[in-house]
């Protein structure tokens, strides 16, 4: 494909926002992977004498009400954000691909049931409400959190995949594969999915942003990862009481959430532009 012939510096110059997004995501991922080596301190180390101290050379982002180093907690917090975000996207995507493919490929009654009854039922609930109810029912914890957020997240993918499969299954090469005696599974996996995966990837990149935000929301509400594990949402909740006397408690985690969400959105937008041939021609790529 033409994609391989485009040089990275040129792409970066053409779309600086996407380049910023990629750099930030790489930074967050590095934080997540190498937190123990990158964090200046143990994120759970309590140092009461220096509590609520503003940013200084000792604590670049200051300390919280228990004297814990905020920078360290931010670095460890990116673990939770990246882990939960990618797990939620992976799980929603997997479910969405399966359900959407089945509904789109088989059509008829299966499609009517899945599309009209199941998907609409899920879409009629706000995702976060569904997640709150689920965690309230199953109890907090990282696995339950991922399940809870995937519960509301898969429908978007299923819908997208269904529509794409619906269009793709009418294409002649799909009929050709059926004429060769290919099984339905083979037709879907080998012929349809590779041809519809591009918009799904875009959706997944943007979905990553949504999942990170949702994780922060859940943790803020105390329904995310239990303390003392550092999560940006939990940090926001901890800092709430000190919004005016020690605003750095809120500013830094809020900034982290914002940057993470923004960078995934930038990447998603850039991917969409790139994968849409019309805007690619306009961009002269």
């Amino acid at each position, binding site marked *: 494909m033409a994609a391989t012939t485009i040089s990275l510096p040129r792409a970066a110059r053409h779309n600086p926002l996407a380049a910023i997004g990629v750099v930030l995501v790489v930074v967050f991922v590095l934080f997540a992977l190498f937190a123990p080596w990158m964090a200046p301190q143990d994120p759970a180390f309590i140092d009461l004498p220096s509590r609520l101290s503003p940013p200084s050379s000792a604590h670049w982002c200051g300390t919280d009400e228990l004297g814990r180093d905020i920078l360290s907690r931010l670095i460890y917090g990116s673990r939770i954000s990246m882990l939960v975000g990618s797990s939620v996207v992976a799980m929603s995507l997997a479910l969405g691909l399966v359900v959407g493919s089945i509904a789109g490929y088989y059509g008829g*009654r299966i499609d*009517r049931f899945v599309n*009209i009854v199941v998907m609409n039922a899920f879409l009629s609930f706000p995702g976060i409400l569904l997640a709150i109810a689920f965690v309230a029912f199953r109890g907090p914890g990282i696995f339950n959190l991922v399940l809870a957020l995937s519960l509301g997240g898969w429908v978007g993918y299923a819908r997208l995949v269904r529509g794409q499969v619906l269009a793709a299954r009418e*294409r*002649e*090469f799909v*009929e*050709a*594969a*059926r*004429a*060769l*005696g*290919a*099984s339905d599974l*083979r037709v879907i996996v*080998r*012929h349809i999915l*590779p*041809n519809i995966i591009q918009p799904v990837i875009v959706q997944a990149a943007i979905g990553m942003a949504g999942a990170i935000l949702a994780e922060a929301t859940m943790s803020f509400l105390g329904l995310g990862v239990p303390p003392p594990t550092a999560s940006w949402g939990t940090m926001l909740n901890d800092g709430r009481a000190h919004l005016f006397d020690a605003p750095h408690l809120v500013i830094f985690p809020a900034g982290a959430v914002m940057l993470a969400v923004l960078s995934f959105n930038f990447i998603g937008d850039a991917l969409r532009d790139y994968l849409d041939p019309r805007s690619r021609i306009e961009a002269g790529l």
Partner: protein
Amino acid sequence: MLLEIRNLTKVFPLGESIFGGGAKGVLRAVDDVSLGIQAGETLGLVGESGSGKSTLGRLILRLIEPTSGSIRYQGRDLLTASHAEMRGFRRDMQIIFQDPFGSLDPRMRVEDVIAEPLVIHERMSPATRRGRVAELLRAVGLGESAMRRFPHEFSGGQRQRIGIARALALRPKFIVADEPVSALDVGVGSQIVNLMAQLQREFGLTYLFISHSMPVVRYLATRIAVMYRGKIVEIGPAEQITERPAHSYTRSLLEATPEMVISGA
């Protein structure tokens, strides 16, 4: 008789509501068609667009399920065949499509496109398979260099050759050619027609050759069936249909098509 079709009918509901019922009308795309195809012959199927000829071709391969009627292949009923039996039939019956751009998966290399029937139906080592693909490419007049390339790197005529190579991979007995040259330039089209004639002799193929163009069909077909609004209005030896058409629709088809010379054989 290689293939025998009896009272085959396909009815498409029009304007079906999302709840299934309440179809506003029906389209009888194929209406009570009966015909037979002898082993080794080429039956030309001619008709204007919308006459149901492509639907008939797809019904025979069970790419579309018929509403009623029967299809017998070598005496065995295709429509009551189980899943496993149908897999066997698929080895024997293949299709060449009209659109050489749409019928090849754009994300597969030519090697994988042609190897797919072999992967589905036969167990063989990758090396053997590659050899078979190379053989097939030669048979349709393409070089081995085509293997690692993608379909979009080829012209329409070359793509149609790739499609033909794929159809031949399992050494089928019967091929439905659904307007295989309509999307091609006249010159390229006649090369493809000649290739098909040559392959028919080499592999002992039987064709159902669907086209809206009388001259193309006349060149290749031993018998011609004329289809109009889902029905076969006339069927007979190619010469008889083209020289002494009995039905007025056949006459109008013959008059509507300009003379075209197909070079070489």
